[in-house]
């Protein structure tokens, strides 16, 4: 034992040590391999197993896919070519079915000379969605987004331009009522009137108006029926319109679920839970088998439209939960500040709460969209020709009867590319939002 300072060597460094490179064993490929693949015997084992798995998978798939035959008229011809090149019975893909039918898988039976329309529609859609997804774009572009749905409808289904215009006019009407009559009769009355007037307009005026305009000034595109729409185009249309149309309903449901008005709250909860508790496929069957029962006798519209309605209801329940999350994430102070400034419920929702809550919800909405987009494959069970339905139809043709994997692989890949990139985007957005919140 000694006194306190006995060992204290006073020390001052005279020259600073410079930054050195790490020793070789601690850097470069050696270290990487050692650390990432072989750090312990468990790891070595895992590495070996993984390599084996990769080998098994690739050794089967790569030759089959890479040696595939790309040009043939039918499966039989494909087999002949294969026998010629690789010998009988070799396992190679017959991609010819894709090269011959890819346009059907993408567009269904849409007239090939009109392919520019869905393509243009897709571009317009991307342009319209861009300002919503990327906050850095000028806000003015949002006006484009507002108009886009009507343009998209017109581009895809064609027909007279006056129909979408007449319908759009209804929204303008509603807005005008809200803007000009609202102040005179109070907020609540304004809202009610802004719903009633356009609905009356659509019911009684829009049709004749569109007809009249079309007669006076016939501008239009060649109409294309819903039956001609199929493949990924159908999946996209159902998915996109499902999500976009379900947004307003979803927001209303979310607000309803947050509301402390007992009846409204309970109704929203019941709606959301019932919709979410039952599989989509049951809802789709409902759309196809039962919807007609619930509507006035004689009403009869397009299966695709019915599916879109059902999908809209379905996704609105999911969107509602996403939006509810967004609403809950807003600090209470925002609600209070809006109240304190004298904004009423609707104004504070519209101007303060929803713009922020929706922004937070976008990643969730994108994820819901991915799920919905994948789920559109279920429409095959009610006879719509989505990619899978089309693959069945293609197999039913005498040329391609008997082909199997190639169609599924192609469809799967398309879905993967689409959903994966969407998923990455939503991840990016989530990270960005989290950064901004810090």
């Amino acid at each position: 034992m000694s006194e306190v300072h006995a060992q204290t060597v006073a020390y001052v460094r005279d020259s600073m040590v410079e930054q050195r490179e790490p020793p070789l064993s601690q850097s470069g490929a050696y270290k990487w391999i050692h650390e990432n693949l072989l750090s312990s015997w468990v790891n070595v084992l895992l590495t070996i197993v993984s390599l084996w798995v990769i080998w098994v998978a690739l050794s089967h798939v790569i030759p089959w896919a890479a040696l595939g035959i790309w040009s043939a008229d039918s499966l039989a011809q494909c087999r002949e070519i294969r026998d010629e090149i690789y010998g009988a019975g070799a396992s190679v893909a017959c991609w010819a079915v894709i090269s011959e039918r890819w346009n059907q898988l993408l567009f269904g039976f849409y007239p090939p000379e009109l392919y520019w329309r869905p393509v243009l529609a897709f571009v317009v859609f991307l342009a319209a969605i861009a300002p919503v997804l990327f906050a850095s774009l000028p806000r003015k572009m949002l006006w484009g987004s507002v108009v886009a749905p009507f343009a998209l409808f017109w581009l895809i289904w064609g027909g007279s331009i006056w129909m979408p215009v007449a319908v759009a006019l209804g929204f303008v009407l509603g807005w005008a009522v809200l803007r000009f009559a609202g102040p005179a009769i109070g907020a609540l009355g304004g809202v009610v009137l802004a719903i009633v007037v356009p609905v009356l307009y659509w019911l009684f005026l829009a049709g004749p108006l569109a007809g009249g305009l079309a007669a006076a000034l016939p501008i239009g595109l060649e109409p294309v029926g819903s039956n001609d729409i199929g493949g990924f185009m159908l999946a996209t249309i159902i998915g996109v319109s499902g999500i976009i149309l379900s947004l307003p309903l979803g927001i209303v449901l979310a607000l309803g679920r947050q509301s402390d008005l007992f009846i409204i709250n309970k109704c929203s909860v019941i709606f959301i839970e019932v919709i979410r508790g039952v599989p989509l496929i049951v809802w789709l069957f409902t759309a196809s088998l039962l919807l007609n029962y619930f509507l006035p006798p004689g009403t009869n519209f397009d299966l695709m439209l019915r599916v879109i309605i059902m999908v809209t209801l379905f996704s609105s329940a999911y969107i509602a939960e996403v939006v509810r999350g967004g609403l809950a994430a807003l600090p209470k102070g925002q609600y209070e500040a809006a109240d304190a400034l004298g904004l009423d419920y609707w104004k504070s929702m519209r101007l303060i709460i929803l713009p922020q809550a929706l922004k937070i919800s976008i990643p969730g909405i994108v994820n819901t969209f991915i799920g919905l987009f994948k789920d559109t494959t279920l429409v095959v069970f009610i006879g719509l020709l989505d990619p899978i339905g089309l693959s069945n139809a293609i197999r039913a043709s005498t040329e391609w009867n008997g082909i199997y994997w190639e169609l599924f692989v192609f469809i799967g890949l398309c879905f993967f590319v689409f959903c994966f990139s969407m998923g990455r985007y939503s991840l990016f957005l989530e990270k960005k939002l989290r950064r901004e919140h810090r």
Partner: protein
Amino acid sequence: ATLDDVKARGNLNCGVSTGLTGFSAPDANGVWQGFDVAVCRAVAAAVLGDPMAVEFVPTTGQTRFTALASGEIDMLARNTTWTFSRDNDLKFEFVGVNYYDGQGFMIPKELGVSSAKELDGATVCIQTGTTTELNLADFFRVNNISYEPVPIETNAEAQQQYLAGACDVYTTDASGLAATRASFEAPGDHVILPEIISKEPLGPLVRHGDNEWGDIVRWTLNALIAAEEYGVTSANIGELASAPGNNPEINRLLGTEGELGAMIGLEADWAQKAIMANGNYGEIFEKNIGENTPIGLSRGLNAQWTDGGLMYSPPFR
């Protein structure tokens, strides 16, 4: 009435199968082709004068009846078996039979089975959603033998399962079996057993209650059958129509004599257009499923009554 609706709309909504080889399938250009499709085209031609004025609505086994009942389609020309309960309980009207089918079995040759009665303990692939599974259950129960049903949603899957040996037997309507076998790499390795365990008269149907429309569809089908009987083909029909011959039945059929068209509310040359659309019944058969197609079905029961088959059109008079 349906006829007016169709005329006002300018096209016929015809329900077909989402895809059944030889009967209905879209080709590379997206144009529907097949035996059932031809019936739709004939009706469209008869009613609207344009065989292409058809909107094909693909239906599944589950959705077909609702589609028809709800008015989404004007007629259903999808391999649908005419049964008592469908006609009466489901309130539809079968207008005739365009194909006499029956449920059969296909089995690999190497199993050495020659009769369906030997199938005790076999695994049987069936396509669900039709009368098939009921027939199957009855057949095995009546013969007091056991089986293992493997229900499959689509023909493509069933084919794949069968080829991989996941089931010993594939059962569906004989026409489907033939079509499936035709697509195999080695069709000769599979046999279709002689037993036909059910009657499957397939025909177009319409809703109950609109008899005018039912008559139009019925007689369009009959016109196709009669045309074959009288030797009216798409090749000679122009000639026969322009110069009325000495067979009054043909003349009435083609509208050069009598007022048959007016009686069902159509043009006088309605049948002529219907036949011109795809040819007569025999031509349609040969083109889509006949012996010269990959499917290679023989006429069998579907031959004209004059040839010992069941195709028999009531007289046009």
